[in-house]
């Protein structure tokens, strides 16, 4: 994955770059908005990570300007403090995801993965999702494993669909809340775990290999880790 990081805080930037490198991603770092604009325009990246407060050009403005010239590279905005309407503002300006600093690196990595792979398993024309022997028919809205039908509740279906679209990637609990339930909030208890374990019951119970795995300290992953 090729990441453009636009961040004026040197220590944060250094940390993110080294972490990205550790898990095998390449990154280009810009400290200033106007320079970042030129870099993003001239080079192709899989994903942009943009801090909100930047010298030169504001982070949201930067994304907006790049969208205006037709550049649709997925962008994740980092913000210092989660003001109440910040998230909405950020997503409205053309960003694809939003993360409040300080964040867990696992969360950032999972989200970057999800963003950069949007184009792969998530094309609009796809009518069928498959992870090993688990198959989801998007038209008939049914799921089967090894040919055996799996009966799901509507929310379980949505949950599985999201996991299948991001098969092989780590998906965090907040990502599931945002995309499956459509709300960005902070559950105080393990409510997501309960839903996931119910889904796991349905798709893994009668089979010898487990597809839906818990990634300790981070979230969940459907299928083996993607390379």
């Amino acid at each position, binding site marked *: 994955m090729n990441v453009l990081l636009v961040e004026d805080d040197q220590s944060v930037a250094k940390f993110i770059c080294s*972490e990205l490198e550790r898990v095998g991603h390449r990154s280009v770092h810009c400290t200033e908005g106007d320079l970042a604009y030129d870099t993003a325009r001239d080079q192709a990246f899989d994903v942009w990570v943009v801090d909100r407060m930047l010298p030169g050009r504001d982070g949201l403005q930067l994304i907006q300007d790049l969208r205006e010239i037709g550049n649709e590279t997925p962008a994740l905005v980092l913000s210092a403090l989660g003001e109440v309407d910040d998230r909405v503002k950020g997503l409205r300006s053309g960003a694809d995801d939003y993360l409040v600093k*300080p964040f867990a690196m696992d969360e950032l990595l999972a989200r970057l993965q999800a963003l950069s792979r949007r184009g792969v398993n998530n094309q609009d024309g796809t009518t069928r999702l498959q992870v090993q022997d688990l198959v989801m028919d998007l038209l008939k809205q049914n799921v089967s494993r090894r040919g055996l039908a799996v009966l799901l509740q509507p929310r379980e279906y949505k949950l599985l669909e999201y996991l299948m679209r991001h098969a092989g990637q780590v998906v965090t609990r907040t990502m599931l809340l945002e995309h499956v339930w459509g709300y960005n909030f902070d559950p105080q208890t393990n409510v997501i775990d309960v839903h996931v374990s119910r889904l796991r019951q349905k798709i893994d119970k009668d089979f010898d290999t487990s597809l839906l795995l818990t990634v300790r300290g981070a979230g969940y992953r459907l299928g083996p880790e993607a390379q």
Partner: protein
Amino acid sequence: MQKVIGSLTFRYIAKYLLVLSATVFLVVVGLYAFFSYNYFRDFSQSIIEEQETLQIVYEGQSLVGVRRYLQDQRDTQILDRFHYLVSDRAGDKMAGDLPESTGYREFDDGWVGFELALLEWGESIEVDFIAREVTLGDEYSVIVARSYEQAVHQARLVFATLARTMIITILLGLIGGYFAAARSLRRVEMLGREMSRIIRGDPSQRLDASAERGQVGELAIILNHLLDQTESLMHGVRSVSDNIAHDLRTPLSRLRNQLSELHHSLPAEKSEDVERLLNDCDSLLASFNAVLRISTMESGNRHAGGGEVDLRQLLSDVVELYEPVAQESEIELDWVTVPNASCQGEADLLFQMFANVLDNAIKYTQQQGSVRVELAHNSSNEDSGYRVVISDTGPGISAEHWEDVFRRFYRVEPSRSSQPGHGLGLSMAQAIAHYHGGTVDLEDNQPGLRVLINLP
């Protein structure tokens, strides 16, 4: 009315009027005594002088002369003239315009005041006279009397005028005082209203001290100072907790990231310990974030509006999210709603609020209990906002703690601490409700707890 009369300004004005009237009254009484004393002295003196004149006339012209003199006096048409009665030793009237049988009382100093019925006009009028009797030679005695009716009349006039003036002064003073008091009271009331508005709403606002004059203006300035101090104290307390949360978040995330790195490189049997540490880090970070979010909402302005939220859909999403959790504990989760409910608000925040409350309700309800979520109009008027009642059959919270549970990090009793959580759920719910202009109240569900959330 009652309030104005009881007000400081009115009482001050009334007291002032009382003292002023008493002073004026005393001065007038003094003046009256002084003038009447002088008047009566001159008055008696004039009678003595008149008698002396009569003596001289009598000595010169005997009784005939006296008669002529008296006639002359009578003919001159002056209002304030003397009255005479000349009588001989036997008491028969010899001359004069007073009737023969004039009775009088004698006073200590020889002066007499008597009430005389003047018969000249054919009717009896009570008139005050001052009279003095002297002898004319050896044969006659003469009473010279002078009416002080005129003076009394004038004195009465003056008194009546003074009394009216004073009554009018007092009346007008009281009315004026009433309005002045009402006015100043209005200013004080306005000050009070402004203050409570500022305290309830945005503590960074100040009174407009320049619009007020005098003491009220000074009071406004003092209140503004007070607000300054209160605000800085509030800021102090809040910023201490915020700063702790804020400043610890960064090192804590760094710690978490390093733990996570360690987790990847450790052999599987060791990784469980690290996992526990990671979970602890996550829950600490979550509560710091919650504190900061609460502060942000409390210090910020109210929700500006704009976003329309389908409350019915949102609540049914919350209920659906928690349904499996309730099922795990065999808790019955009821959900009652009205067909249409939309309000202005931030969906994520509202979701957070209901999730916090419902999470608590399920957490504290024992197995086979029930939790009920009810969405209804606030009253029969459909525009008056919504009421969401989330009730459980758990142990409830005793009424003495109802205020406290909204405080950050407050846990009701040690036994409850066995449950996970940081005691921030209800504070956050309240902060979110206030942010939307709503309220959160608690009630006894007998048994259990009812949480009432009102939204405009």
